[in-house]
């Protein structure tokens, strides 16, 4: 069952550009996490959003949880090569801190 859709699958941009990636579902979630994964490493948690309509900022990254808690977006301002990686969204799908991961958006920021 396809629980989540992340888009776009791939994104290649120049340093300094802005971008937005999306995480969509037809299900309602109690919370959702965003991770970044670099090649050869495990995912690293960036943020957890809990409240519908919530906006969180982490330096140049802005995360938003949809009002209905079914979708989320990640906006990066003035992307840098260090932002390159796989961005994964992972909503909470049950008890005991269990999260389901999407397939991710692979971002490449060229210098």
């Amino acid at each position, binding site marked *: 069952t396809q629980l989540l859709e992340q888009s776009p699958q791939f994104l290649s941009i120049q340093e300094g550009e802005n971008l937005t990636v999306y995480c969509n579902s037809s299900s309602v979630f109690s*919370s959702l996490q965003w991770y970044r994964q670099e090649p*050869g*490493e*495990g*995912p*690293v*948690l960036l943020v957890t959003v809990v409240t519908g309509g919530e906006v969180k900022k982490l330096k140049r990254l802005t995360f938003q949880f949809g009002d209905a808690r079914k979708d989320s977006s990640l906006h990066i301002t003035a992307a840098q090569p260090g932002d390159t990686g796989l961005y*994964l969204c*992972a909503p909470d799908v*049950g008890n*005991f*801190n*269990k*999260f*389901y*991961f*999407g*397939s*991710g958006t692979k971002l490449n920021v060229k210098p």
Partner: protein
Amino acid sequence: EAGVAQSPRYKIIEKRQSVAFWCNPISGHATLYWYQQILGQGPKLLIQFQNNGVVDDSQLPKDRFSAERLKGVDSTLKIQPAKLEDSAVYLCASSAGGQETQYFGPGTRLLVL
């Protein structure tokens, strides 16, 4: 503070052989997870332990995969016998429990020929 340790980092085996992966979670973390990440996909949860008890193993292919967490600390994941489609990165993660953050290890990259 040391992170989640995994070994080996890479493993190449032939189909029908057996393989085992080891994970040492962050000290004091009660919850331990094993994920399988196939190329081009996100991590898929295989099994979740709370201390040395299994919380969820609904997506673990139990005919060939097994995992244990003796004494509630280190964990091993075994595949016997391996199939071509088991080629993936196997990630271990741990958390302090509840809604605490999951910390991932670097993973073991398995190639089954």
